[in-house]
């Protein structure tokens, strides 16, 4: 039958496309790490060797990068877990008042880009210009000890805060769906509350907690913006920033192959943890095999601790979202950077916003960003939808492999992906992609494919097979079925994924920085990064304020669509 044949061709097409998109950059990443040529453009199979590896791993600095990375990742993950477990426990299992604020507020913190959050805290806590530090000096004299945000501690604190919302969103449904009769059965079996907590509740939550922990550690490991803003100025490197430094800020001719060599360990760690993570998820799911139905939620009476508990929850929201926004808002009206005081009120100005309108680079960056983000989101949605259709709804022989291929980029840190594409686009110079926004767009699309296909898989599984079959027997050919049954039923998911991709593509700086060439492919994230680097703080504050407002509105839109389930995986920077 003609239709059947077309269907199969289409399956193969998707399969080959994904295979190509995922494997080619990886191949270049690996080959590049062995290349002895200085520049990716000079790469040839004749000039191969272990020089890069020897150079990178014999450097005593590498050991320090390892230990920095471990401290940073472990610290941030631990802090985030403690905060997220406490918040989730407060809203799900206690009678704390004002829960609605936490339910609504915590996901909102995702709207503040990591880069801007780090910058806001620099304005508060940098040793020289930090508002808080200046205040301390004014009160206690110039010898007073200050808090320096350019430190491992600063990175741990900020990344810890940033990981909370994702962990919270993962933990809340977990705590909600936990069958209370499992605990009640322990109580009627004679177990005291503490014993129940230890032997039943925590044991049941353990696999999921470990899974959340690994997921968070992976995120911390991959994040570039926080260690980039807080670590680079002080010369404190972790993996992601070191790779960036080798490629972008080396004083001499950059040695690109060394970045690849460093990226390889990084890649192994990331792939290893992903493997472990998927196995943990499997176990966690086995534990939820036996669950009860809707029960009246049991809630612990906090008594006199009700208000203090709410206070702590609100403090988190204040530090994560209100404070960075206020700092940016304030700085955006300053003629030059200065600490808040009564005198400042008289010099506040709209100059920065006017400057933005006049400054040509802002316009072109904005245009680039809109194009890049729109293309990325659309491509991700279309590609993920097609991949998921094949994976979930067809009997195509390679559908398992296709699913794994689509998920694999999830394990690859953005900065590593950046290098891989950097090599790829320089080498395939017959395609004029290098230095364009399309290069960034392709890179992001592949990165977000994992998220897109997870969401679409879940949504497609919800659509009963018979809805599709009913369309066939009603005379609709496959493509009509897709258009008239799947697309309308999946609309919330399609829109949700689209907005999610926009939210993330607009603010991630890591990969675009690796592919950045000049004004031609400068996007907003890079513009902010560069302006910050050059010290135009009030102008950055103005852009940042506007960006935060837009992102907050978009995040609200996601919630408005009622797109709850997908927030499970909202993460990144």
């Amino acid at each position, binding site marked *: 039958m003609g239709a059947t044949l077309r269907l199969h061709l289409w399956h193969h097409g998707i399969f080959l496309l994904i295979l190509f998109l995922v494997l080619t950059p990886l191949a270049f990443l690996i080959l590049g790490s062995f290349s002895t040529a200085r520049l990716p453009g000079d790469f040839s199979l004749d000039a191969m060797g272990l020089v890069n590896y020897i150079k990178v791993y014999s450097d005593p600095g590498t050991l320090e990068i390892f230990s920095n990375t471990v401290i940073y990742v472990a610290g941030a993950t631990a802090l985030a877990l403690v905060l997220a477990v406490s918040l989730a426990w407060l809203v799900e299992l206690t009678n704390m008042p004002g829960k609605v604020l936490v339910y609504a507020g915590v996901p909102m913190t995702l709207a503040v880009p990591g880069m801007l959050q780090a910058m806001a805290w620099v304005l508060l806590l940098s040793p020289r210009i930090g508002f808080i530090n200046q205040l301390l000096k004014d009160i206690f004299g110039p010898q007073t000890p200050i808090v320096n945000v350019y430190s491992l501690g600063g990175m741990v604190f900020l990344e810890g805060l940033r990981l909370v919302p994702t962990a919270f969103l993962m933990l809340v449904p977990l705590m909600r769906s936990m*069958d209370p*009769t*499992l605990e*009640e*059965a*322990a*109580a*009627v*079996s*004679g*177990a*005291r509350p503490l*014993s129940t907590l230890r*032997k*039943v509740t925590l*044991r*049941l939550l*353990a696999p999921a907690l470990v899974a959340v922990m690994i997921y968070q550690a992976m995120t911390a490991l991959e994040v570039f913006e926080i260690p980039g803003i807080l670590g680079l100025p002080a010369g404190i490197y972790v993996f992601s920033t070191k790779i960036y430094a080798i490629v972008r800020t080396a004083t001499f001719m950059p040695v690109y192959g060394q970045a690849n060599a460093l990226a390889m360990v990084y890649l192994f760690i990331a792939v290893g943890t992903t493997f472990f993570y998927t196995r943990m998820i499997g176990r966690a799911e*086995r*534990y*939820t*095999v*036996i*669950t*009860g*139905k809707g029960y*009246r939620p049991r809630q612990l009476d906090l008594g006199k601790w009700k208000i203090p508990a709410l206070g702590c929850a609100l403090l988190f929201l204040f530090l994560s979202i209100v404070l960075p926004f206020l700092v940016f808002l304030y700085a955006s009206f300053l003629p030059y950077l200065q600490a808040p005081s009564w005198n400042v009120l008289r010099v506040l100005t709209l100059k920065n916003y006017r400057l933005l309108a006049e400054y040509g680079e802002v316009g072109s960056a904005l245009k680039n960003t809109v194009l890049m983000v729109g293309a990325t989101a659309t491509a991700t949605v279309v590609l993920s939808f097609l991949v998921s259709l094949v994976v979930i709804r067809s009997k195509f022989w390679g559908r398992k492999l296709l699913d794994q291929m689509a998920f694999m980029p999830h394990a690859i840190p953005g900065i590593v992906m950046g290098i891989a594409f950097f090599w790829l686009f320089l080498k395939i110079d017959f395609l004029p992609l290098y230095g364009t926004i399309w290069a960034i767009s392709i890179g992001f699309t592949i990165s977000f494919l994992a998220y897109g296909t997870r969401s679409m898989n879940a949504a497609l599984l919800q659509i009963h097979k018979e809805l599709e079959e009913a369309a066939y027997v009603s005379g609709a050919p496959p493509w009509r079925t897709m258009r008239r049954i799947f697309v309308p039923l999946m609309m919330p998911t399609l829109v949700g994924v689209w907005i999610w991709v926009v939210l993330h593509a607009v603010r991630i700086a890591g990969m675009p920085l690796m592919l950045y060439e000049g004004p031609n492919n400068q996007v907003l994230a890079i513009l902010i990064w560069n302006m910050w680097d050059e010290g135009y703080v009030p102008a950055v504050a103005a852009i940042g304020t506007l960006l935060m407002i837009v992102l907050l509105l978009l995040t609200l839109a996601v919630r408005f669509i009622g797109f709850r389930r997908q927030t499970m995986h909202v993460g990144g920077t």
Partner: protein
Amino acid sequence: MIRIEQLHVRYRTERGEVHAVRGIDLNVKQGQFFTLLGPSGCGKTTTLRSVAGLEKPTAGEIYVGDEIVFSSAKGLSVPPYKRDIGMVFQSYAIWPHLNVFENVAFPLREMKKRVPADELRSRVRKALSLVQLEGLEDRPAPFLSGGQQQRLALARALVREPRVLLLDEPLSNLDAKLREETRVELRELVKRLGITTLYVTHDQLEALTMSDVVAVMDGGNIVQEGSPVDIYRAPRDKFVAAFIGLSNFLEGRVTKPGRLGEVETAGILLKCILPDGVATGDSVIVVIRPEDLNLYTGAATQNDNILEGKIEALIFMGDTLECQVAVGKKIIRLKLHPSSPVARGETVRLQLPAASCRALRA
């Protein structure tokens, strides 16, 4: 063994306050199999959970054995882990992180006095053999079938040999065939052990086949309490008659009072058993079970309590033939032997034996 006095349970939900249990009294004697039967939302599970200590009643008193475990007047509430009870949950609540052996051993390990390892092992074995799960000790709990999980939950509830066993719809998640077998097994097991059992179900068949005493609940109250035969043969009100088994209801007016009186209904004078204290002219509802009616295609052998009608529908149900007869505008249902020689549209006479017709106050 279990005594409940004036129990009230109110709780708050998102939709407002619910008065789930409204002042019930009950008394379960030593070794009795006592069933709370009612539709969902009638307060039966809330009552059971109050006995377990999982629900905090608003008012009343609960005794387990000689011990008072809850008293609102004395401000006393013994926590569940200090009450000597075993309980089987509707979802079974088998701990998925423990294997079969450890699930059953859990209550023993939580006993105040440490149980020596040998004794622990032999008691777990014994409990598992009671429910025929020997040999599955090392099986992870999630790898059990529904029936096995149900039996494991029972073994766990029995392993401490508690004075009281609480069962919350333990059969409702089993398939029909298994449920039928388990009904008999479960009753035999608890009767053999002589354990006092409080059982909650919405399934009338379970209640009738398993219980010594059934308490029918509705809207937070016990509407009737008695032996299964009493409950079925002599329902005290329309709710009980309608909830348990099939019933035909005929509205009418008393024309002759007395224990065996007469009611004018469906155009005839019907002899039936009247409740105490009704007078001529009172409105009543006459209840008659479908299996108590006699059907005649020719002339009736008796002249009393005869209704004439036309067969509207015949429904073959395997062991019986349900026959729906239109008497005037009223449909009366009766159960016939499946090979009865009747046909749709046929005019028939129904005879209602006076001893099986019970009038209830309307």
